[in-house]
């Protein structure tokens, strides 16, 4: 009903988080919240071993939005699950790597302690709210459970907090609807409920795994705006996992592009769109139709995403790459800094940058 540019809520900027940080034993040094260090994840199945993540490293600071961009099979969702510790450990295995939260390695932490970080420190929002919410409990009860479990609150206090949270995420008539069930809400509303549950305990890191993929575009805009508001208000680190280049352009500060379980390009958002340094990123940007252009020629990337049990030797992207040469089938390019502040894993980044 109103036209508005991106808005911020000023009142409780950082306060909620500061309170939580004062109590918790995890304190970010220089604002560095999360460090993923050379992470490897494999899945052992009857048909073979799928190498889902092959050496991924990145950092996340307070108040910043990191977008992990990739398609199916790139490993982006598995990364999120590895950070949260919700992978099924057989068949998944983490043969190498560390995930340090405020300096503490989550992967080697005892399960009991790790469980305590889910919710108050790191939280996640999934794509499909309908299957993530329990259909037999009212939504208010589910949100309140966060308070009852982690903070030991009694039922009525927890429910009050739940109502306040529902109001914060702009669910109309929250007091009445707190007793309603998930199926009685629309997709966008359910997603807001998931977000409410995720931020209930003031986490420092929020991971959003394809939060708007299943939603209509007008609802998507509302949800992304809400996430940004909440992030600024609480100075959370937001990891946004998606395949949507439009959403990333709108919201991200830094982008890590993943392909076949590796980061192939890492850059500031403006630089990435202006001049990609990796053929895959470039291919993606050239293949999507833009709303504000007429008469485009979509330059499709040929071939298929790789089978994770048989990743091509050398650079995983080489069968589909128009810059590929012999060296690409034998030497796998490491992620290196091609110009200051921009990293890419390609032997020919300079050519790609120059178009």
């Amino acid at each position, binding site marked *: 009903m109103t036209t508005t540019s991106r808005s911020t809520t000023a009142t409780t900027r950082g306060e909620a988080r500061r309170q939580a940080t004062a109590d918790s034993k995890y304190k970010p040094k220089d604002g560095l919240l999360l460090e993923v260090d050379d992470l490897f*994840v494999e*899945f052992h*199945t*009857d*048909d073979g071993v*799928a190498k*889902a993540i092959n050496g991924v490293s990145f950092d996340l600071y307070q108040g910043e939005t990191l977008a992990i961009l990739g398609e*199916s*099979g790139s*490993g982006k*969702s*598995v990364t999120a*699950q590895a950070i949260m510790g919700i*992978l*099924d450990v057989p*068949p*998944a295995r983490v043969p190498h790597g560390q995930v340090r939260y405020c300096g503490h390695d989550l992967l080697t932490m005892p399960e009991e302690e790790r469980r305590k970080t889910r919710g108050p420190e790191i939280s996640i929002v999934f794509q499909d709210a309908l299957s993530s919410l329990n259909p037999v409990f009212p939504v208010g009860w589910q949100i309140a459970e966060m308070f009852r479990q982690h903070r030991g609150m009694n039922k009525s206090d927890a429910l009050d907090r739940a109502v306040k949270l529902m109001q914060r995420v702009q669910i109309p008539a929250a007091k009445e609807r707190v007793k309603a069930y998930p199926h009685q809400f629309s997709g966008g509303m359910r997603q807001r409920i998931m977000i409410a549950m995720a931020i209930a305990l003031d986490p420092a890191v929020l991971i959003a795994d394809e939060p708007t993929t299943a939603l209509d575009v007008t609802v998507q805009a509302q949800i992304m705006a809400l996430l940004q508001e909440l992030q600024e208000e609480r100075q959370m680190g937001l990891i946004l996992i998606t395949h949507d280049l439009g959403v990333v352009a709108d919201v991200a500060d830094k982008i890590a592009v993943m392909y076949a379980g590796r980061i192939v390009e890492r850059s500031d958002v403006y630089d990435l769109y202006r001049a990609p340094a990796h053929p895959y990123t470039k291919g993606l940007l050239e293949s999507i139709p833009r709303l504000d252009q007429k008469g485009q020629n979509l330059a499709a990337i040929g071939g*298929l*995403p*790789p*089978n*994770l*049990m048989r990743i091509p030797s050398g650079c995983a992207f080489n069968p589909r790459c128009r810059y590929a040469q012999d060296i690409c089938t034998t030497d796998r390019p490491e992620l290196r800094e091609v110009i200051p502040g921009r990293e890419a894993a390609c032997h020919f980044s300079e050519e790609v940058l120059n178009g």
Partner: protein
Amino acid sequence: MTEATTIAVGAETGTTQATEGGARSLASDAWRQLKKNPIFWVSVVLILIFVVMAAVPQLFTQTDPAEAILKNARERPNANAWFGRDIQGYDIYARTVYGARASILVGVFATLSTVVIGALLGVIAGFYGGWGDTLISRITDVFLAIPLLLGGILFMASFPNTVDSPYMVVVGKVVLALGLLGWPSIARLMRSSVLQVKPNDYVQAARALGASPLRIIRSHILPNAMAPVIVVSTINLGVYISVEATLSFLGIGLTPPAISWGVSISDALVALRTTPHILLFPSLFLSLTVLAFIMLGDAVRDAFDPKTR
């Protein structure tokens, strides 16, 4: 496999490279899965043994099961009579071998008739919907309310056998009883299976091409809806065998001189305390047969279900 595994392995596990294996239908994938399952092989071996036993009992024993040697009655297992003799002097091994026939006949034919009737009605109800569905479903509900065993007893009591009722007539009556009481659960299962398959786009695509209902049912719906029915029917086979044994045990199924495991078990009760071996062997065979079919049904269900791979 979890969602994560499926995504990580990717829909790309299938392939376009020409070097990669030939055509793999779902049936052949299921077969590969079955082959690896030891329970499958155990159940197949057992079933084969019992089926051959039912068809050609002479292969297993030369002794005449109707020959009673009274002076050796209640004999323990020995070299002449491997399972011993019962209270009337019959060779238990021979009677057990010949008893397989009744069980297998009843099991197989009862299952066939429930599947044929049930599947037909289930498909009609599920595919056409409307009044037909309502009618069939209400009839199904009524029949489902009748307990299998009790219904069987009532049926057999209403159409009693005489001493000279031919063997096949009695078997036929048991098959009829089970068929009448057993089709509703198959019909309901088939109906719900059809209802799950019908909204799939490939069925809509066939309609869009102008395919006749018969073609759609035969070509698209049945092959995709049959799996749960196959699994349940296999398990039901075992159940029907045990029902036949129960009816014969109670004296309203097969009766002497007809040979059935149920009859043997009934005869054995009298001498249970002193000569338990008379009860042991027929019960053992009965249990093994029922178990074999249940295991087969389990193995087939696991092989057909893509989620458990």
